[in-house]
C-alpha cells in the first residue's frame, strides 16, 4: 500500500502546472470561450507533453503510465484552470486517431434522456462523440444543426446546444461507454480537486496581502477558519480521488464504482464551497470580473455536472450500502 505520489509523479504535476500557467495564463483563460479564441497551436503543445495519452499504451503512441497518473495530471490542469476539452481528449485519445497528438479535437456529450444536449467545446471540435447506454458513436459536427451560446456560464468553456442529436456512427460498445462515463467522472473530479486547491491558494494570497483595521485580513480568525475548512475539504476529497484513481489500475483492491461516485460527491463539494469562500474572502474585489475568484467557481459549476450529477453519485454510494449490492 502506498497512497502518496512518488517524486516522479510530483514532477509530472509540476511540469503540467508550469506549462499551463505559461501557455494558458488567466487573461487567455477568461476569454477562452469567445468565438475564434481556441488556440490550436497551444493545444498541440499540450498534446505533445503527453497530456492526453498518459494512460494510453506506448505502442499506441501514449505515455504508457497508469490512470492514477492521468488523475494527478488532471488535478494540476484543474488548479491552473487550463481550458478544455481536457476530459474529452483523455477519453478519446485511445480510440480516435489524431486526438493523441492534438490534431483532432474531440467533444463528448452524454445523450440526454429529454431536452436539448448542452455540449462543451463543440465550437472547437473536429469530432463529436456521443455516449449512450448502447455505446459510443461519432458525429461530424459540420453535419449537425448547432447553436453556440453567446454567454456560457464559464467564460473558458464554450457551450453549444443541439436540439436533435443524430444517431451517428457506432464507434465502440456499451462497455466502453460505461468505462468512459466512469473515467470521465473521475477525471472531472480530479479537476474539481485542483479547483478546490487553486481557489484556496488564491484566497490565502489575498488574505495575506490585503489590510484592514491596520492588519492583514488573514489574521482575523473568522477568515482563518473559513480557509482552514477549505484546506480540510480539499485534502479529504483528494484522498478519495487518489484511492479511486489507484482502483482504476487495481480494480481487485476495492469497489471502483463506489470510490468514483464518492469522489464526485466530495470533489464537487470541495470545489464549489472553496470557490465560494474564495470569492467571499476577496470582498468587493471578489465580485469583480477582473479577479480570478469567479473563474474557479464557474468552472466548478460546469464540471460538477459532467458525467453524472452529485445527487446521482450520492445515490450510487447509498445503493452500495444495501445488503446484497455488488459492493457490499
Amino acid at each position, binding site marked *: *500500500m502506498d497512497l502518496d505520489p512518488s517524486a516522479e509523479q510530483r514532477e509530472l504535476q509540476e511540469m503540467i502546472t508550469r506549462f499551463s500557467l505559461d501557455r494558458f495564463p488567466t487573461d487567455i483563460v477568461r476569454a477562452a470561450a469567445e468565438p475564434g479564441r481556441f488556440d490550436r497551436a497551444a493545444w498541440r503543445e499540450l498534446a505533445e507533453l503527453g497530456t492526453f495519452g498518459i494512460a494510453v499504451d506506448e505502442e499506441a503512441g501514449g505515455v504508457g503510465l497508469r490512470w492514477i497518473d492521468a488523475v494527478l495530471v488532471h488535478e494540476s490542469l484543474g488548479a491552473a484552470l487550463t481550458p478544455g476539452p481536457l476530459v474529452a481528449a483523455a477519453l478519446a485519445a485511445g480510440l480516435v486517431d489524431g486526438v493523441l497528438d492534438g490534431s483532432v479535437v474531440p467533444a463528448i456529450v452524454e445523450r440526454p434522456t429529454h431536452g436539448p444536449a448542452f455540449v462543451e467545446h463543440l465550437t472547437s471540435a473536429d469530432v463529436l462523440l456521443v455516449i449512450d447506454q448502447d455505446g459510443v458513436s461519432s458525429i461530424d459536427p459540420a453535419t449537425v444543426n448547432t447553436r453556440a451560446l453567446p454567454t456560457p456560464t464559464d467564460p473558458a468553456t464554450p457551450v453549444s446546444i443541439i436540439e436533435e442529436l443524430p444517431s451517428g456512427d457506432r464507434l465502440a460498445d456499451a462497455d466502453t461507454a460505461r468505462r468512459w462515463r466512469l473515467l470521465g467522472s473521475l477525471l472531472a473530479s480530479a479537476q474539481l480537486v485542483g479547483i478546490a486547491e487553486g481557489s484556496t491558494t488564491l484566497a490565502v494570497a489575498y488574505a495575506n496581502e490585503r489590510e484592514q483595521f491596520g492588519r492583514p485580513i488573514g489574521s482575523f480568525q473568522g477568515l482563518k477558519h473559513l480557509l482552514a475548512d477549505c484546506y*480540510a*475539504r480539499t485534502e479529504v476529497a483528494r*484522498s478519495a480521488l487518489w*484511492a479511486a484513481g489507484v482502483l482504476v489500475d487495481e480494480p481487485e483492491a476495492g469497489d471502483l464504482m463506489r470510490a468514483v461516485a*464518492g469522489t464526485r460527491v466530495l470533489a464537487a463539494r470541495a470545489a464549489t464551497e472553496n470557490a465560494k469562500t474564495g470569492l467571499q474572502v476577496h470582498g468587493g474585489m471578489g465580485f469583480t470580473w477582473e479577479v480570478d475568484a469567479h473563474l474557479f467557481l464557474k468552472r466548478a459549476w460546469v464540471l460538477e455536472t459532467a458525467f453524472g450529477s452529485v445527487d446521482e453519485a450520492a445515490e450510487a454510494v447509498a445503493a452500495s450500502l*444495501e445488503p446484497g449490492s455488488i459492493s457490499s
Partner: protein
Amino acid sequence: MHLSDSDADAQFRAELRTWLAEAVPTLPSPPDPRDWPGRRAYDTLWQRMLFDAGYAGVNWPAEYGGRGATPTQHLIFLEEAATAKAPDVGVGFVGQMHAGPTLIAEGTPEQQAHHLRGILTGDHVWCQGFSEPGAGSDLASLRTRAIRDGDHYVVSGQKIWTSHAMVADYCELLVRTDTDAPKHKGISWLIMPMDLPGIEVRPLMTVQGSAEFAELFLDEVRIPVTNRVGEENDGWRVTNVTLSFERGTGFVGELLDTTNIMGELVELARRTPRGPGTAWDDDGLRRDIGAVAAELDALWAFTKRNVSQGAKGGMAMGSGSAFKMSYAAVVHRLGDIALRVLDRSSLAFDDIGEDRTGAQLHHKLKGFAVGIGGGTSQIQQNIIAERVLGLPRER
C-alpha cells in the same frame, strides 16, 4: 502509488486473520460500560492475548519489545482487528499510544526497562494528566506545581478530564517546575505512580452518562526525580513528542467503528416504517447517508495517505488536523441522520428491543468527544491556518 497488499503484507494479513478468527470468540462477553474494574480486566486480558501471540506493539521497535512491523502492517493490524470485531485498545490507549512511544523517544534506559514491557503485556495501565481546569486549549498555561525537595518533586494541583484515571497504575503528568520562566519553558513531564499518597481521583460523569474520565486532586504528592522524562523545564518539547503520536493512525479503530454504526443505521432505516414504505425510501435521507459513506471512505484513504507519508519520513504538516476536524464533523453528520431515522424513539437513550437505537445516540455524542478532546476542532483550524496556510498570527 498502489493499494494492493505486497506479498509480505498479504501473508501478515492472512496469518493475523486466522489468529483473530480463533482468538476473538474465546473472549468473555464485554462488561457493562460503567463497570470500570470489569473494563480494565477485559481490555487487559485482550492485550495479554495479543502479547502472547506477538501482536502487542505492532509498530513499536523490536528492541523495545514491539513487533517492529512497517507502518502499513500496523494499519493492516488495526483494520483486521476492527473487522474481526476485536476489542479496541480501551484502557491501554494512553500507555500504548502516548506514554510508551514517549518513553521510547525520551526515557532513560531504566525508565524504559521498568515500564515498556508492562504496557505491552497489559499489566500497566496509564492515564494522561495534562489538562487542568484553567488550562485546556491553552495547555501550556498549566499551574500544577512541582517543588524540588532533595531527590523528590512535591506536587500539588488539579487535573481534569483524565481518561481512565480510576483504573490507571501510572499517570503521564505535566507540572510547572519554574514559575518565572515563559509558560512553555517551565514545564516538566513526570511519571506519577497512581498509588502514591496525596492523590485523590474523583470520577467525572460524561454526557454519555458514564464516568470515562475523572478529576485528579494532588496534595503534596512526592514523586522521585528519577521519574522525570527529559530535562527539567523541557517538558513542553517532550509533550509535543507525545502529541505527535496522537494523530496519524490514532483514529483507525474509531473510523471502522463509525462505519459499523453507519451500517446499523442503514439497516434500521430499512426496517423503520415511514409513510407508505420505510425511512430508506426517502431520497434525501439516502443521499445524505451516501455522502457520509463517501466521507468515511475518504477518511480511510486519508489515513492510508498519512501512513504512506509517515513511512517515507513524516506526515505532511496539517494532515492530522484536517483528518481530526473532518472526522468529528462526519460523526456529527451521521448522528444527525440517526436522529431523523429514530424520530420519536430517540427519546430513549437505551437500545429498544433488538434495535441498537441507543448506540446511535451514544455515537452521536461521541462526535463531541472527538471534536473537543486532544485539541478542539477550532484549535485544529488555527493550526492549519497559521502553520500550513501561513496566515498571520492574531497577536
